[in-house]
Each structure stands twice: as C-alpha cells, then as structure tokens.
C-alpha cells in the first residue's frame, strides 16, 4: 500500500523523555510537520508513526514527562539526535574536571545544555568529552593523589562512562573503566564489584585486560612510597655494609 504520510519540511521541537540529572545523553527528537502536527519516530520510514499529536496533546505529553520541549527548534537532518548534558555533568564543581560548554546551548525549558546534530557528530562530541575526562583522571592518578584528588579522578572516570556508550565507543569505555578501577585500588576500595558490573559491557578477556592495566596504573599511582629515613639494625651475619653513592655528574 502506498503511504504518503511523509512530510517535506520537518522541524525538531524537543526530545523523548526527561533529561536525567547529572547525565549526558543522545536522545531521540520530537518532530513537528506540518505546523501543529507532532510525532516521534523515523520521518524516513515507510510506515507512519503510531500516533500524531496536536498542540494540546503535545503539551499534555510534555506535562506528563513523556517528552521534553526545547526553546530552540532545528530543521530536521537525517540521523539527527538531540545531545543534552545536565549542568552538573558539565560543571560539577570547583574540584572537578569541568567540560567546555561551547558546543551546547543552555535551554531553560529543558533545564539542560543541548544541541541537535547528526548521530556521528554527537558521538564525536561525547568522545572528545570522554577523552578529556579520562585524561584528567589519569593525570590525577599518575601523581600521588590525596583523598580529594581521588574523588576527582573517580568522578571524571564515571562521567566518562556516560560519554562512551557501548558499542560505539568501546575503547573509550575500556579506558574509563581502567581509570575507575585504578582509583578504587588506590583508595583501597575492593574493585571486584566493578569487574562484575563490566560483564554488562565486555567479555572476560577484555575485563582481564582492564584488571591488569588498572592494577598497573594503581601501582604507578603509588610508585614512590614513603622511605623510612632511619637506618635499621645490623643484619644477623655481621655489620651492615655501608656504600657511599655519589652522582656521576658530580664525580665528573
């Protein structure tokens, strides 16, 4: 049966569902076409959407939280998604790794920062954010982090996971989990539950690689343990041998 439901001009007026606090995500758009008729789904599909809404029905759906309407509207593009980020995700606090807001626009109606881009573009933005977060976590772990810095590393690694949806950004997700597991080990929090959780995303081999690299990274975070400054007692077989070490450069 020939179906002629497909409209010519389609506008994006919002997205499905409610934004989640302190999260970032790609979500499906809500469309308007022609003016006053709204729907969700794929405008290129041969099959028409299950239902079309008029303005009052749209407002009812917004009020009920089925969808979020945005202040800004965009012309529809193929494979477009709305990318949103909650302000607590972008700028959680002074002691956290804050992300640049320049790529998104604040939207008071939706209560988040957002943009409408192709899926590939949204994934690229998420990858950039995720990389920044993982690098920040790793930088923190490569020093000798105190408790506050470990919190920062853990927060950055967990936020990076929002930027690495499986399967699209699997390697970024691996890196984020390595940083997170290393943070757990450094702060003496058992990481076993984390490895179990990873089964949702990875096979056993990948998890074992994550485990090895997390342990190595955690060891690196404690590479320079405090030295005891006092000389110990003599060994049982005689007097302690004392060796004087001088710098080669100084000797030269």
């Amino acid at each position, binding site marked *: 049966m020939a179906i002629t439901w497909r409209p010519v001009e389609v506008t994006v007026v919002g997205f499905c569902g409610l934004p989640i606090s302190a999260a970032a995500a790609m*979500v*499906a758009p809500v469309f308007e076409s022609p003016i006053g008729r709204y729907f969700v789904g794929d405008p290129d599909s041969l099959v028409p959407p299950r239902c079309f809404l008029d303005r009052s029905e749209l407002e009812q759906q917004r009020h009920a939280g089925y969808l979020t309407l945005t202040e800004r509207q965009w012309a529809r593009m193929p494979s477009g*998604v709305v990318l949103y980020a909650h302000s607590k995700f972008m700028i959680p606090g002074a002691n956290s790794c804050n992300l640049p807001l320049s790529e998104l626009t604040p939207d008071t109606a939706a209560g988040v920062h957002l943009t409408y881009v192709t899926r590939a573009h949204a994934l690229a933005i998420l990858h950039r954010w995720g990389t920044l977060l993982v690098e920040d976590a790793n930088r923190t772990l490569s020093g000798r982090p105190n408790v506050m810095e470990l919190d920062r590393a853990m927060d950055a690694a967990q936020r990076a*996971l929002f930027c690495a949806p499986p399967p699209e950004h699997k390697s970024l997700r691996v890196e984020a989990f390595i940083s997170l597991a290393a943070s757990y080990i450094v702060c003496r929090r058992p990481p076993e539950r984390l490895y179990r959780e990873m089964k*949702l995303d990875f096979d056993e081999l990948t998890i074992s690689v994550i485990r090895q690299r997390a342990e190595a990274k955690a060891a690196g975070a404690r590479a320079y343990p405090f030295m005891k400054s006092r000389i110990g007692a003599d060994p049982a077989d005689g007097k302690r041998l004392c060796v004087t070490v001088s710098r080669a450069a100084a000797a030269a």
Partner: protein
Amino acid sequence: MNQVPLVRTEGKAFADQATLTPERMVRDPRLLRASKTDGTREVERALGLGDSLYFYVGHACPEFGQIVLAYTPEWSTSEPGGATPFDTGGLQLGYVQGNGTDDPVSYCISHRVTLASWLDDFTAYVERHFSSPGAYVLGERAQTDDISGRLLHPSNSRRAWTWELQIESDHQLLANLKLLCVQSELAEAIRRELRMLPDDEAAAWIDLISSSDFRVAPAGAEAPAVCGMAEEVISTWL
C-alpha cells in the same frame, strides 16, 4: 509454558517530578500507589476501585515512561484488589467501546474478577480469543469477539483488550522482577548510583544488572523502542 508477566512502565512525570528516577530506583526501590494522577484517582472513585497500583498483563505501554518492569504473575494472586480484561481508565474516559460500555460502572463490575482467580480467567481468555499468548503480548487483535463486542470493535485499540491488574498495595521494585528494560543513559545512571551503595545494599541490584534480565536499549532510542524491546523479549518466553 511460561505465564504472561505483569508489566509496569514507569518514569512518567507527575506534578513535574518523574515517578521513578535512577536515584529512587536504587535508594528507595518501591512501586508506590501514590504515583498516580488526580485523573486516575477520579477513575478509582467513579468505578469503585480501591487505591491501586496498576499493572498490564504482557503489555509495555510507552505512554507511562521509559522504564519497563516485568514481573512473574503468581505473587499477585494473594494480594488485595482485582483484575479486568481492559484498561479501567480507558473505559471510564470513553475510549473502550462495546455493548454496555456507556455504563462504565456496571460494565466494570460485570467484568472484574478477583486476583485469586485472575490467572485462570486470563489463561482461558487468551485461549478463547487469541491465536497464541505471544500474539496477545505483541498487541495483535483477537481472532474471536467477546460477548459485548469489545475485542473486535473497530474504534478500540490495544488497551481495550489488555488485562489490567489493580493491586491494592505498594510493591518492592525488585521482588519477583523478571525483566528490566531501560534506555542507555538511564542504565548508566543506575550503575553510577549502585557504585555508591555498600555491598549488602547493592547485592540484589548487581545480580540483576549482571544477568540477562537487564536489557538496555541503544543510545538514542525513543520510549516506544524500549517498550517494543521488552515485548519482544517477553514473547520469546511464551
């Protein structure tokens, strides 16, 4: 053959607050009768129903949110409440058509069964009117009409033939849970919440999300996709 599960779709907002957020799912995992609109309370008053928690049998309705919870049905038979072979809200609001639906109170009374007997009544209903339990779960129309002409009425849609349970008690979210389907960002938020919980409090959740009972829709999927995914999974059980 497995029983058709009880399904509840959550995440809708009432009074500008979502009924079930990731934080609440993990920290206070209860399904509450209080999570309903004034409209639903009005329907309860009009039809003489008690203060109820609502489940559809085998139908993940996308109009109630993006979190799909499916439960084994047996526990419901010992709960207070009742069951109807249609959506009571739809009946009261005039969306369910058939002989006698213009008097929704008496129509509801004549079709409502006790929770103690609903499983047998539902099984007989599906056998009598549908090609298979899977066809019912996937939203196909009945093959034979009922005595009031409701099942094949051309104006009716799925909620006119989907069974609804009105359970007059709150329910622990994880008790008898057989399937949880969510969007990817919600899954991520649930996992973040779980990492903050001590082992003993997180144990049941960790068991759930590590199992095949936890399904995550691809990033960017809209609510109907999550519900469709849940119904596809349920249909494979039957």
